[in-house]
């Protein structure tokens, strides 16, 4: 059984939504877009008034460090632990699109899928397509399979303005991250041996200017203390050697 599923993965690298958590600014646009995409109206002005209310399937949780966050969603594992443990066969895989789907009407709410999910991205809410409007069923990312069939980008990746969520061929997305890291590593190594620009140069010039003006206008006594005040005073040199990287 798993051989059949795996053969699809072996033939081609899947198209997927890849996460660059270091880009995430915590705006939660992906959550909003996901909920609207999974509403009946598909209208941002009306979706939240529906009953049952549509739910996001991507979850932005904050990190320990302020202003860090991670947009977490189903990774559509293959084989999928949730599929392997579901006692009612509610979890299936769409071979063509390579996404794991949950059939809401077959879900009995046992939460075994959530227990084994390595990413904790399965939650339980009533759904419009569920057995009835009150009963909570397993809810997770469906890969925006309808959009993908129309050759459209999944809603979360479309909403993301900072490329924290990007959609494409998995190896390409990973490679673009590798390119970024390569440039960062080589940039930090400073292989050109050019002296780095003094990032505080503007401040120093401003400070020198202030001292010059002060010395000329009001504080003749400071003239001696601060040197000539011509933009190359001793204060600047000291700062530069303290703060320099070499």
């Amino acid at each position, binding site marked *: 059984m798993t051989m059949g599923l795996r053969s699809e993965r072996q033939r081609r690298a899947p198209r997927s939504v890849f996460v660059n958590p270091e880009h995430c600014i915590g*705006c*939660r*646009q992906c*959550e*909003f*877009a996901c*909920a*609207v995409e999974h509403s009946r109206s598909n*209208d*941002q*002005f*009306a*979706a*939240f*008034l529906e009953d049952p*209310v*549509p*739910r*996001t399937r991507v979850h932005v949780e904050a990190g320990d460090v302020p202003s860090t966050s991670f947009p977490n969603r189903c990774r559509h594992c293959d084989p999928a632990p949730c599929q392997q443990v579901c006692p009612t066969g509610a979890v299936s895989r769409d071979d063509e699109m390579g996404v794991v789907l949950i059939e809401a009407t077959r879900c009995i709410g046992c939460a075994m899928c959530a227990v084994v999910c390595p990413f904790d991205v399965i939650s339980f*809410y009533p759904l419009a397509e569920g057995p009835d409007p009150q009963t909570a069923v397993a809810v997770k990312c469906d890969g925006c399979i309808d959009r993908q069939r129309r050759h459209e980008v999944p809603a979360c990746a*479309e*909403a993301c303005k900072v490329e924290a969520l990007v959609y494409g061929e998995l190896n390409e997305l990973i490679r673009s991250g590798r390119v970024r890291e390569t440039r960062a590593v080589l940039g930090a190594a400073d292989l050109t041996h050019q002296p780095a620009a003094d990032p505080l140069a503007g401040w120093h010039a401003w400070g020198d200017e202030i001292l010059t003006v002060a010395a000329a206008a009001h504080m003749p006594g400071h003239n001696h203390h601060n040197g000539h005040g011509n933009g190359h005073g001793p204060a600047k040199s000291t700062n530069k050697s303290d703060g320099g990287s070499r």
Partner: protein
Amino acid sequence: MSTVSRDGHHSGRLTINEDARRMIDVAREEGIETVWDRLQAQQPQCGYCSLGVSCRNCSMGPCRIDPFGAGPQKGVCGADADVIVARNLGRTIAAGSSSHSDHGRDILEVFLATAKGETTGYRIADEAKLLRLAAEFGIPSDGRSVSDVASDLADRLFEDFGSRKEHLSFVERAPAKRREVWEKLGIVPRGIDRENVEMLHRTHMGVDNDYVNILLHGLRTGLSDGWGGSMIATELSDIMFGTPSPRMSEVNLGVLRSDQVNVAMHGHNPLLSDVIVSAAQDPELLELARSYGATGINVVGLCCTGNELQMRRGVPIAGNHLMQELVMMTGALEAMVVDYQCIMPSVTDVAKCYHTQIISTADKAKFPGATHVSFDPHRGAEIGKQIVRMAVEAYPNRNPDRVRIPVKPVQMMAGFSVEAILGALGGTPKPLVDAIAGGAIRGAVAVVGCSNPKVPQDYGHVELTRQLIEHDVLVIVTGCAAVANGKAGQMLPESARMAGPGLRGVCEALGIPPVLHMGSCVDNSRVLVLAGALASYLGVDIDQLPLAGAAPEWYSEKAVAIGAYVVASGVKTVLGVQPPIFGSPHVVDLLANGLEGVTGATFAIEPDPAKASLLIRRHIEAKRKALGLPYEEVEEMAPAVEAVGTGA
């Protein structure tokens, strides 16, 4: 539903106008970015902000409410969706009111300086109107010089900006019954600056935490614009530049001349544009233009500056808000002279692709990449010439191979001030009242407001207006809506043929179009004066009249202020673009339903012009029925917002 989808990005779906379509295609060919490209790049736009449930008023935040219910329902301070939506809306109204009112103050300052003889290029053009206003305010004029009377009037109006008065001077123009409504609600506007400052105060964290109380002050803030800042701007502009009277002019990009120096006046305040029009007739500058091979200097208008100039001087209009980038793609524009409001920061980027000079003039509105000429009314005439000279000097840089003026201009009629309308009626509102009472004219609707790239350009304005006049509803237009209707050929006396039989008969008898151009966006104050005059004539309140307002393509904060004062004055207003309030069903319910029992008028939101037309006609017929006038049954339909309000 209001956003441009990917498959809707073809130029033919962005605008209904041939000139805009052709220029958008040019922009695409040449890789020049336009407002539609930037709207597309912003999709999908922030859902929290679209619903109004994001707040960045303080540094405990920023916060947002999760409208889907799973996430936070309160900001850090404890404000819920109702408070956040109301605070945001209140600040939007204050920004819009402040914009109009600051424009009014600028005119007032130049008016006083002119009265004292300290300016060049300005004069008291309509002395009769000055004397009418003086009489209205009890300022003596017998045996006094024009200068003294004008100075006294200016002093009186300066007081309206402050905090020393119980109510604004022009509030007394409102019908007595309307003033009683405002007094009962405690929303009589006291001072123009005061209401705006108080709104900023109330919406600071921990001040006004009652969304109803915030919104009531929002109405008062709007009233300080409509019956204050905007009305001062309109009335003093009339005194200084002439009260508009009907005149023929032209509109669309075809007003640019391939053989002349073209100067586009863009922005809002007639203080600047009026001296430029005069300077363009200067013999020395005309001679300079001829020396460069041009046959003349052609001044055209954009946006509301265009409306101000057309209403008073018959100057042709190149287009409305969404044409400001496209006008440069004709390759025939030497200079775009700007003051303030609605001037996209992108104009300097587009100008870099052509020989066009962007000349900024207001010290409060600078544009990196533009040439700044600080406008000083004390030397108005001289600065006007300096600016026109810069435009002429740019003419030799024009590349004739890139000039493509896409269409022939369309004729339109402008200039319907309240004075002009009453003049056409023989000096009294009686003929109009009789036509409405008899049913030849069912009612009147002000179609106003901006252009918004979320709506195919001019579609909302033109389609709604067409459907209204077909059903014998007289339409009054200002701002971008006026330009749109002009381009569609709906603003000529002959356009009466497009109207229903009743309206057509009245228009043909008076020789007027079925769509009357009342001016710029500050000139919506003229609509208030007209509505007030009709109500006072009949001894009723404004909310009893068969009137409505519509802003089918609004985008700006000023439009929200206008909506606030129009509804607070008792006129139902239909918006074509969703305001950011839907995150609070309580606020929506108050604005769409609850206000009916408070100001006698509500907001509705209906993006489809056909449905908006039905909604408005149903409202007008209901008002007719209540007044005991003959009425018709209009097909039933539920507008989008009322359906949402009920479901909440």
